[in-house]
């Protein structure tokens, strides 16, 4: 893990007795929340490259069935299944969660609430180490005999629990083991996030003075902790079914496969809010900074997010309308699903209203934040088709569903990642990234992204179902127009993947040769911009720990010459 070498020498601190650290203790076994944030970030980026490569491989197979794909070779049906399974698993559990929740959570929480580190530094390090172990276990599952697990990321038994059905005996056990380990890692991380935010706020920081991104990350951690339990129990039961021959999910011996679906989706839906809320918080902080404007109705944002969090535990079976649950239950879950779309709609209205009366400067982070809102609107809007049980009868498991959740997951994972990195890069690495190349990369990613998934909406409406390796067996799906759309989507993916190189170069170049970043490059209010870039160990000298006097969004306050008002500036 080649880490960056922060330009500014570490400031010696009397209180922490800052002895000269060896490479290992500073980078590999560091307990500093900022270093652990970077570790999560780089592991997340590495896994994103793997996940992206899988997407390249199976999209090429879909566009040119049976072709010898460069860098991969011919994709066999079993390989196709494990490619899509692990693309989904990696992108959610090993890219979105570490980067959005853990990397930015670790970086942002202590800095924004004005304390020197997470409350339990060693547990914080342990959570990263368990996460790294889970990533290695998952990667090893690709190379075992029989290949990686191929039963889709939802792993419905009996396909996932019976080796004679999924033909990946070792792969499936390693897969569920890796997912279980990843849950343990994020349980430990979650406890750290929640306890730090609840207990270690800077003196004077009232509930309404906490930046929205910190609120969102903590609520996301609470949602994760309260929802992962049943699936952890379910994962243990699945592991026993796979290896010990128990029959929790085997219908012929008294078990019930639908039990796993409920256990999975009881976790599954709060999970999508776990990864959705932190980027939503970042959007709030970034658009207020670059619109120089106070967040519209701070309390409304909080109440809608609390409402969404609680409701997210009541909607899970809309994933299972036609997969065997009792049809009467579907009506209840249609009601709750349409109910939960309302707070999210209100949140979007609040963010759009925040732009009214602003001085919007379109820097790269602002472009990413605004594109998050624009793209997520499409994702949210197409979700109503799927939440309405009557319409879901047709749309379930088609590419319409796939396009819908990519219009929600892409803004969460990829746009959220780029928004956070471009905004906090000066603070993390003490350097500035090039804004020009940032914009080139932005347009180079957003336009192709839409070119990939709008055709997939059309294909899904035409009845094309997911996870099918080759559509030549379905005459209705092999009309020339549809195959062209698949090729067009794959070509757009190639263009988008190419533009990611622009980012990687800009990212690494910024780290090594970027111009020195000042304390507060964006002239923002929150506390992380009141310490050096990159912040020393302990963020502020122990004697100068910040005290807070006002909220984080006091921009363009009438009667002040500067249009921003840092939180720790005494009135």
């Amino acid at each position, binding site marked *: 893990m080649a880490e960056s070498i922060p330009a500014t020498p570490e400031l010696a601190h009397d209180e922490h007795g800052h002895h000269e650290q060896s490479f290992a203790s500073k980078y590999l076994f560091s307990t500093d929340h900022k270093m652990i944030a970077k570790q999560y970030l780089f592991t997340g980026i590495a896994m994103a490259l793997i996940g992206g490569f899988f997407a390249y491989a199976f999209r090429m197979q879909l566009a040119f069935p049976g072709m010898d794909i460069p860098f991969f070779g011919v994709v066999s049906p079993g390989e196709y299944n494990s490619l899509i399974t692990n693309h989904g698993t990696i992108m959610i559990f090993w890219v979105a969660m570490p980067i959005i929740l853990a990397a930015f959570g670790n970086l942002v929480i202590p800095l924004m609430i004005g304390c020197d580190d*997470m*409350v339990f530094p060693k547990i914080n390090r342990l959570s990263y180490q368990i996460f790294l172990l889970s990533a290695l276990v998952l990667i090893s599952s690709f190379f075992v005999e029989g290949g990686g697990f191929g039963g889709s990321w939802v792993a419905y038994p009996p396909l996932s629990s019976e080796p004679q059905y999924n033909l990946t005996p070792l792969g499936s056990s390693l897969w569920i083991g890796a997912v279980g380990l990843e849950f343990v890692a994020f349980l430990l991380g979650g406890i750290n996030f929640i306890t730090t935010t609840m*207990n270690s706020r800077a003196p004077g920081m009232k509930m309404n003075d906490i930046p929205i991104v910190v609120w969102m990350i903590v609520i996301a951690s609470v949602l994760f*902790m309260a929802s992962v339990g*049943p699936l952890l129990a379910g994962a*243990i*039961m699945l592991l026993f079914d796979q290896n010990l021959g128990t029959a*929790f999910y085997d219908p012929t011996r008294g078990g019930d496969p639908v039990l796993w679906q409920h256990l999975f989706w009881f976790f599954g839906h709060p999970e999508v809010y776990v990864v959705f809320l932190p980027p939503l918080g970042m959007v709030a902080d970034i658009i207020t900074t670059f619109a120089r404007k106070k967040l519209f109705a701070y309390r409304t944002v909080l109440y809608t997010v609390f409402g969404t969090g609680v409701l997210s535990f009541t909607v899970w079976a809309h994933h299972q309308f036609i997969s065997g649950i009792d049809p009467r239950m579907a009506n209840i879950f249609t009601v709750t699903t349409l109910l939960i779309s309302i707070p999210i709609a209100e949140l979007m209205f609040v963010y759009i209203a925040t732009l009214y009366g602003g001085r919007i400067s379109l820097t790269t982070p602002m472009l990413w934040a605004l594109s998050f809102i624009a793209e997520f609107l499409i994702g949210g809007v197409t979700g109503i088709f799927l939440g309405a049980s009557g319409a879901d009868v047709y749309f379930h498991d088609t590419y319409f569903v796939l396009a819908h959740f990519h219009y929600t997951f892409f803004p969460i994972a990829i746009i959220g990642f780029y928004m956070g990195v471009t905004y906090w890069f000066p603070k993390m690495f003490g350097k500035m990234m090039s804004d020009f190349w940032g914009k080139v990369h932005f347009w180079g990613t957003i336009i192709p992204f839409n070119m990939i998934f709008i055709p997939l909406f059309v294909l899904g409406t035409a009845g094309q179902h997911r996870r099918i390796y080759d559509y030549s067996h379905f005459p209705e799906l092999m009309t020339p127009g549809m195959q062209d759309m698949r090729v067009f989507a794959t070509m757009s993916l190639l263009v988008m993947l190419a533009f990611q190189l622009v980012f990687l170069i800009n990212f690494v170049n910024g780290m090594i040769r970027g111009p020195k970043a000042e304390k507060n490059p964006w002239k923002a209010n929150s506390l992380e911009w009141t310490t050096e870039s990159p912040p020393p160990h302990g963020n502020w000298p122990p004697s100068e720990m910040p005290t807070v006097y006002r909220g984080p969004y006091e921009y363009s306050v009438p009667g002040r010459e500067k249009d921003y008002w840092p939180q720790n500036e005494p009135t």
Partner: protein
Amino acid sequence: MSDRPIATTRSAAGMPTGKLAVWWVVVSEIVIFGGLLASYIMHRLAHSDWGEQAAHTNTWIGAFNTLVLLSSSLSAVLAHKAASEGNGPKAAKLLWLTILGAVTFVTVKGFEWAHEIELGYTITSSTFWSFYYTAAGLHAAHVIAGAIIMGIVAVAAAKNRELHRVELIGIYWHFVDLVWIFLFPLLYIAK
């Protein structure tokens, strides 16, 4: 104490950081055992034939194990009381007593399982037994983990250091006892 960050010393939520964290651990454990027991109860209510399967569990051993855990909860709370009075060595002695209770619990369960497996009731003989071994096994794993951490806390408490941790491990221990209070009737009484 110097390497502990300033963050840990603050308590904006009105309670010490350690206790706040332990309560969140308890909440996350509630949903884990809750998910497992909910699945078990559903299957149990669905399959009336599990009654005679459950008849082969030995209620007396279960009752004794409950008594052992209840007593270990008592010594854990007495250890907390001693620690809050600043008496480290006494707290440590009581903690070791609790660990003794834990060891007794696990060994008794070991013999019980060995006996049942001998009689042919293995984890795969029926879904009741699968749930029986999974739930009791997960609980036993938590008992062992709790005992190990309690050992570490007891060693420190004996030297009058980190006395607040005695209460923290106590809360976790009472939770493990609570899970067993529900597991006992579910697995042993409902016949």
